[in-house]
């Protein structure tokens, strides 16, 4: 039984799933930070 490839496939799949999810978290964080900066900019320009 050539089972070792299934073992590594499962291991790689596990970390691809976690890595993809972490990637989406980072992307969502940077998008929100950008929105927050834009809000700050618009607020500052409105005050001037």
């Amino acid at each position, binding site marked *: 039984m050539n089972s070792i490839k299934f*073992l590594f496939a499962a291991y790689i799949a596990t970390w691809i799933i976690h890595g993809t999810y972490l990637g989406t978290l980072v992307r969502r964080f940077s998008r929100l930070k950008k929105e927050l900066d834009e809000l700050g900019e618009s*607020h500052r320009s409105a005050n001037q």
Partner: protein
Amino acid sequence: MKRGFLILSVLTGLLLVYASYQALEVAPTERTMGDVQRIFYYHVPSAWTAFLLFFINFVASIQYLARTKPSAQTATKWIFIAIGVAGAVASFLPPVQQQLTSLGMRPSALATTALMLPVFYLLLGKWFPGEKLDILAVTSAEVGVVFCTVVLVTGPLWARPVWGIWWAPGDIRLTSTLVLWLIYVSYLLLRRFSNSAQTQMLAAALAVSGALDVPLVYFSIWFFRTQHPQPVIGGNGSIDPRMLHILLLNWLAFLCFASLVCWSRFRLEVLKREVEEAYAMESLGEPVAVAPSMPLKRGTR
């Protein structure tokens, strides 16, 4: 806070590497299945982590629903305390002890679990007051779905070389796990695409009913004959002590990793709500404080 997160990340990374090394190299090779059995060391901890996260989601959702009325809040608290005390007392009754022993369950395990329920409920309410309960609920559900996805992917990768098939249609453990995943995906879709003021309440109600599937998934292999292997811990199962040690080490590593991911997701949700609030205030023409760091405070500028 940032430093604590960094230190915990490094420690978790080291623990994950060490646990993976133990699982892939040090753990004894199973006699009949060979190396593919090592999938067990991240399939099972992922499942346990997902169950724990769904349980957190369940308790947070109940508290979120109950907080609308003080009487409901008090009643729920006492229901949890009653369940805890009743479970602990019942575990000392000889007929219950006999029944539990025949099922391969230790009475002390039932007593501990029962007593932990009200403690967990009260601590969660104390640590996550108000809206934070809802943030905790969405965080635990989302991270739980990720871990449940790992379970559903690694399971078939183990089954193919061992059973000769990827999936056993009709197997109660497999089907109930898939249903559990679908319930929580629905929960996340509801939260993502519904803009109603009642969304959080509806999601909490869905979470409470969906969590009922968790005990069905967990105990299905105790009470039904399934293609899925029978339990190795409890349920009259047995496991080599070295394997058990490595399994628990991997679970610890996955728990630390899940805590870090939940921490990040929680902060993301807080930030998201602050941005939404800032937009709402801006549209109303009210002054909004946009600080480079959290939290946002309205009307301070």
